[in-house]
């Protein structure tokens, strides 16, 4: 019945989350846990994330980038267990340093064999992993336009190239 089914789902997503978080955090440990292990319908679902080399800490103490990594691991774990055909992610790399953003870009590329990913980003380290690239621009008349871009168009998206596209 409902309890058994939910329990299976939680275990399934937890399996994926453990693996994916370990990979994204380069050796950290994460897991999902029921507040009430005896009854999944009683308590809520806890999420744990312990970055490499650190003692377990409360979630709120984690840094902005560490929280994003755990969130992304959770999303990828949901996808692994029960994939959606389409993911639309808007600036999910906003708090990530260059290395973590690169790893997310690589994982998005890997996972996009099984689902379609539309990813909005300002970061070239993320965008360079895309197979297709669109630029959204406005010419000073308040009307948005979408243009096809090639990777070299944004190879320096943090600098002069943005002015050319805009």
């Amino acid at each position, binding site marked *: 019945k409902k309890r058994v089914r939910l329990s299976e789902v939680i275990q399934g997503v937890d399996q994926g989350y453990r693996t994916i978080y370990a990979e994204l955090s380069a050796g950290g440990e994460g897991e999902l846990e029921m507040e009430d292990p005896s009854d999944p319908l009683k308590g*809520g679902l806890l999420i744990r994330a312990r970055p490499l080399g650190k003692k377990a800490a409360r979630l709120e103490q984690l840094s902005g980038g560490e929280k994003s990594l755990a969130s992304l691991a959770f999303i990828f774990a949901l996808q692994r267990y029960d994939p959606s*055909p389409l993911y639309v992610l808007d600036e999910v790399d906003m708090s990530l340093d260059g290395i973590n953003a690169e790893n997310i870009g690589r994982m998005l590329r890997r996972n996009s064999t099984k689902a379609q990913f*539309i990813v909005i980003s300002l970061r070239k380290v993320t965008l360079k992993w895309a197979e*297709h690239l669109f630029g959204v621009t*406005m010419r000073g008349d308040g009307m*948005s336009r979408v243009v096809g871009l090639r990777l070299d168009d*944004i190879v320096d998206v943090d600098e002069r190239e943005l002015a050319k596209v*805009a």
Partner: protein
Amino acid sequence: MYLKKLRLHNFKSFAGTTEVPFSTGFTGVAGPNGMGKSNISDSILFVLGPPSSKALRADRLTRLFFDGGKTGKPATECEVSLIFDNTDRALAIDMDEVEFTRYVKLAPGNPDGYYSYFYVNGRRSTQGEMDALLSKARLSADGYNIVQQGEINRIIVMSPLERRGLLERLA
């Protein structure tokens, strides 16, 4: 299945009709601040997501009509269509292509001030029928497959009960 085309008509900063062709796999969307990138994800939510405008940074649905730009007159309607490749029949419709459309039109006579209609392959559809189709194909916007700007850390910040709710939808 995959989204093969997005059509926007007078939706937020997209004046007139804009068609965006998509491919399978990983598509990146780039561009300077304020150009309309998040408005594109808003347009997808407009069709697949909850009917209210609050998630789309608008206090009412009529705020979503293109406002005319600096000097023009505001539009009085807007429409967004999502055209999916359905060759794998992930959607329970026997068609290789399925188009979901939402159309909102100014109607000062109406209590809310507008009409809001949903269509599947051109035929009027209730929100309930759409939700049934979408959720069976795992396309509804409630499973954390659509993450809006600034929302990525919500999974960490949300209450344990809310987080359990995300998994209950898969059960």
